[in-house]
């Protein structure tokens, strides 16, 4: 079991909510992994402290006089005094008791037949009708429940419903849903996901993925479908992909067809089919890599992208990179410090020589036209989508 997975289900583990087999896997992992063991112990320490918080905190002053006054005031209020004060045998009025109050509600005057109530109801109906009309004209996308019942706004959807602009769709641990992205595609929403519709315009189909996992299948031209996350903006370039966002805002993109671009904080990553890309809030997208990349290469990229990695990590990338990893090296060309770029350039030329017109000096000074031209030789097709103008 990977550390990432352990961190996600550690809460369920300490709460005793995991199936036995999975709990054993966690125990095994904790015995071997010091970092996760530290997390576990920190969580246990917190729960220990929480369990010792006092259950009783006396109010700073005696609240009974105020409560008593409220009870007296309500017993004499217009709601209860006239209708609910009971005439005793001796003819004197006496405040009702709780039991009597319940019984006497049935004897209350039929307020719903009064003219004032009827007029108020008509006003409410008129405004309600107008509000419903406005809702029906608000841009929205169709939602279908795939498993369990998902929540849209404050309503639970058992079969189908609508997700309006500004509304959140939430799935719990067993529910899944499908959102039809206007006329251009669909998004499957996995359990424990929170997602919001931001725009539903012809030229801007936009979701906000706060947490959880979604699979998008889009059959529209590039740059019509966007997903905002805490770490980066995912721009569809005609594709199929999975996007996952953790509670802390970090995320992972996995492209299965076409291309997806990630943008944030001045960083830009283009991920082709078969590629993955991690992202972190405050930093943006990392360097994309092939799904076949070695574990050492992935770990080295994590350090380079998010943890101040340097030459040691770069050497690992050079050692483990193959032809399929040229798009990873291509991204590194402009991301590593200028002093390290010649090494990246040299390793790239070993895997795929630059085409005519692309020079070492040009690439090292970051000439975008040369970089794009080189990218086209290994199928990244980087420049075409930037030039694409949406409808």
């Amino acid at each position, binding site marked *: 079991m990977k550390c990432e997975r352990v961190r996600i289900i550690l809460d369920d583990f300490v709460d005793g909510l995991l199936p036995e087999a999975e709990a054993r896997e966690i125990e095994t992992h904790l015995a071997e992994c010091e970092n996760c063991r530290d997390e576990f112990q920190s*969580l246990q320490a917190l729960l220990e*402290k*929480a369990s010792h918080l*006092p259950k*009783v905190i006396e109010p*700073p002053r005696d609240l009974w006089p105020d*409560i008593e006054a409220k009870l007296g005031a309500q017993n004499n209020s217009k709601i209860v005094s006239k209708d609910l004060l009971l005439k005793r045998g001796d003819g004197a009025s006496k405040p009702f008791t*709780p039991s009597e109050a319940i019984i006497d509600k049935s004897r209350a005057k039929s307020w719903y037949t009064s003219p004032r109530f009827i007029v108020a109801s008509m006003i409410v109906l008129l405004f309600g009708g107008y509000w419903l009309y406005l809702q029906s004209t608000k841009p929205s996308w169709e939602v279908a429940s795939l498993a369990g019942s998902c929540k849209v706004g*404050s309503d639970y959807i058992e079969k189908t419903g609508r997700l309006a602009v500004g509304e959140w769709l*939430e799935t719990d641990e067993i529910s899944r849903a499908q959102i039809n992205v206007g006329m251009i595609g669909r998004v499957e929403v996995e359990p424990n996901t929170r997602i919001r519709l931001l725009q539903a315009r012809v030229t801007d189909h936009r979701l906000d993925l706060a947490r959880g996992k979604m699979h998008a299948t889009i059959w529209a031209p590039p740059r019509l479908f966007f997903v905002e996350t805490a770490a980066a903006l995912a721009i569809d370039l005609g594709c199929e992909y999975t996007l996952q966002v953790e509670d802390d805002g970090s995320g992972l993109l996995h492209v299965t067809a076409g291309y997806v671009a990630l943008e944030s904080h001045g960083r830009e990553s283009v991920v082709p089919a078969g590629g993955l890309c991690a992202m972190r809030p405050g930093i943006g997208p990392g360097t994309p890599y092939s799904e076949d990349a070695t574990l050492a290469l992935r770990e080295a990229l994590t350090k380079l992208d998010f943890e101040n990695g340097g030459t040691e990590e770069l050497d690992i990338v050079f050692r483990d990179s193959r032809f399929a990893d040229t798009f990873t090296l291509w991204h590194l060309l402009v991301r590593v410090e200028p002093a390290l770029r010649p090494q990246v350039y040299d390793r790239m030329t070993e895997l795929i020589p630059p085409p005519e017109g692309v020079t070492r000096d040009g690439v090292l000074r970051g000439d975008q036209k040369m970089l794009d031209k080189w990218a086209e030789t290994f199928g990244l097709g980087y420049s075409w989508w930037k030039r694409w103008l949406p409808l």
Partner: protein
Amino acid sequence: MEGEQATAIPTFDLISRAQNGDQAAFEQLYRKYAGRVYAVCLRLSANAGQAEELTQDAFVRAWHMLATFRGESDFFSWLYRLAMNVVFSDMRSKRRRTSRVMTTDDLSVFDQKNSSGMDSATIDLEKAITALPKQARAIFVLHDVEGYRHEEIAGMMKLSVGTSKSQLHRARRILRKALEA
């Protein structure tokens, strides 16, 4: 939930008398449970003044609802649920637009001597809880302090179980960071 404590007059007698309109009996029930109700109102609202109002509202509502208590459950559990409904109803109505973060004066409530006593680590945790986002705070208090299950919390707060779990995860993460800082 915590069971009832032995008192000079058995609780069921007090309940029975209160159901028949005996406010003196109801006052004794208040004195018995005020600390428990106030504690959870304080933790959920993170505001001492608001906690006092919520505690009062909870007991006023309890008085009016006493007839519905049939003794099938522990009286305190019934009262506690009712208090929770008051708190969450208040949160939803947004009638009280007070800050979710306690003032310095409010925090002094946790420095007062109470039946359990508090060491500095406990006070640190109480203060960190008050700084949590509203929903995450409520779920942490209900789950990790009061011992409710996610299904119960989801029912009370009208959320999904998944939301309850993720908010608890978020609260724990924030608290661990705050306490380790």
